């Protein structure tokens, strides 16, 4: 099957510091790819390069066999097909929730207002926010804002959805309400590339996991084998850093061999 997105050996540096040092990947229709890695490894930059928020220095990016990297004028047409949601929600604070949702479909895609509004209402109620349609963003909680941002991106009917650490700014109790929406989307067959630090979520939602380190994809695999038994030492260390607390408990329980279970 033809992949929706093809990234071929892209390089990107900021002020002479290499952030992406030759990244290649393909994403197929209906596939959910989760990208994880330590901060500064280039995973957010990778997403930003895919929809042209950053220009790449070398390599190329193809959306359904059409080259989209290095486009100048028509980038907005490409972005109509690629949705993106950020860590900081970025709802437009001067517009009500419904106007936030309608802006892209009615202005960029020139769809009819009535039709889109009906669809928007339907999607809002699916994420449990039907009563917030006329609210201003500042009256919403972080989790609610992020759900609105997801609906806003989905209303564009994107071929590919990019999620850049969408729960990183949320209070812990709000994380699941957002991630459940994403899992629903995945089950409906939405094609997604997701950068996240939520390992449980990654394991649940991913068809494929990419582990990035220092500007390259260091490991790639299915979620079961990657999370159970990563092949590279670096990925193992990275995953272990998330289990610090439980590792300590284990160590205490494991009193027969004191000191040996020390992390690092």
């Amino acid at each position, binding site marked *: 099957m033809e992949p929706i997105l093809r990234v071929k050996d892209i390089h990107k540096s900021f002020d002479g510091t290499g952030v992406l040092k030759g990244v290649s990947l393909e994403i197929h229709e209906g596939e959910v790819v989760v990208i994880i890695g330590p901060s500064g490894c280039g995973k957010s930059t990778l997403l930003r390069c895919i929809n042209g928020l950053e220009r790449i220095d070398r390599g190329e990016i193809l959306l359904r066999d059409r080259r989209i990297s290095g486009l100048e004028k028509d980038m907005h047409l490409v*972005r109509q097909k690629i949705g993106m949601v950020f860590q900081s929600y970025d709802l437009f604070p001067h517009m009500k929730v419904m106007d936030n949702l309608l*802006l892209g479909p009615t202005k960029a895609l020139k769809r009819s207002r009535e039709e889109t509004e009906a669809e928007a209402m339907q999607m809002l109620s699916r994420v449990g926010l039907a009563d917030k349609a006329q609210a201003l963003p500042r009256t919403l909680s972080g989790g609610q804002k992020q759900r609105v941002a997801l609906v806003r991106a989905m209303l564009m009917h994107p071929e590919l959805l990019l999620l850049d650490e969408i729960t990183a700014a949320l209070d812990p109790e709000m994380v699941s309400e957002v991630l459940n929406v994403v899992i629903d989307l995945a089950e409906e067959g939405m094609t997604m590339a997701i950068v996240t630090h939520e390992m449980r979520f990654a394991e649940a939602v991913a068809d494929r996991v990419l582990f990035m380190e220092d500007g390259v994809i260091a490991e790639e695999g299915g979620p079961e084998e990657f999370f159970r038994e990563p092949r590279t030492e670096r990925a193992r260390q990275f995953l272990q850093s998330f289990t610090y607390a439980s590792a300590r408990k284990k160590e205490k329980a494991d009193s027969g061999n004191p000191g040996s279970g020390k992390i690092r």
Partner: protein
Amino acid sequence: MDWGFIGSHITDYTAGAWVTLRFGLYGVICSLVLGLLCCLARYFRVPVLKSIAHGYIELARNTPLLVQLFFLYAGLPRVGIRLSAEACAVIGLTFLGGAYMSEAFRSGLESVDKSQREAGECLGLTRAQNIRYVLLPQALATAVPALFANVIFLIKETSMFSVLAMMDLMNVADTLRTSGGHTVEVLFMLAAAYLVLLLPVSLAATLTERRLRYAGFGNQRTV
């Protein structure tokens, strides 16, 4: 105070005020347009245009309007560029005001988070749509106090139109003054006239600012 004199010359002042207001307004409107264009050229780093805009702003902000007016009105005709007094007035005021308006717009735009621009781009909006629906409404809300301050500043600056032999407030007063006898009354009415002209502007500024602050965000207009 000779109230009879004041009463008999009030129509002179209303005529002068009308000239001041009309040309002040033309200048303000043109300044807003020019300022917005310059500001966008710089914000989006449009090649060549941004440098022209920058150079123009520096030039306009660092020279007095009076000198600009003399140059337009008395200097240019000598090299074959002849402009009417009214044209000089509007051009001069726009030249000065455009630079100040541009700076006001710029501080407004810079106060809008960069990620807002990206969020608009990610929705596939064109640059013009992004400016129109996402950036400008937010920038305007922040820029309003500075914009109003500029409007008041520009209307005050119209007092220099008298050197163009235009019968604005200042020139009306000056003519009456030199005709003798009633300096105090003439100047009293001049000051009062500017107060009457500018008080509504100042009031509008206060009200708008209060409304913006109350709403927490400027523009609640639906798309």
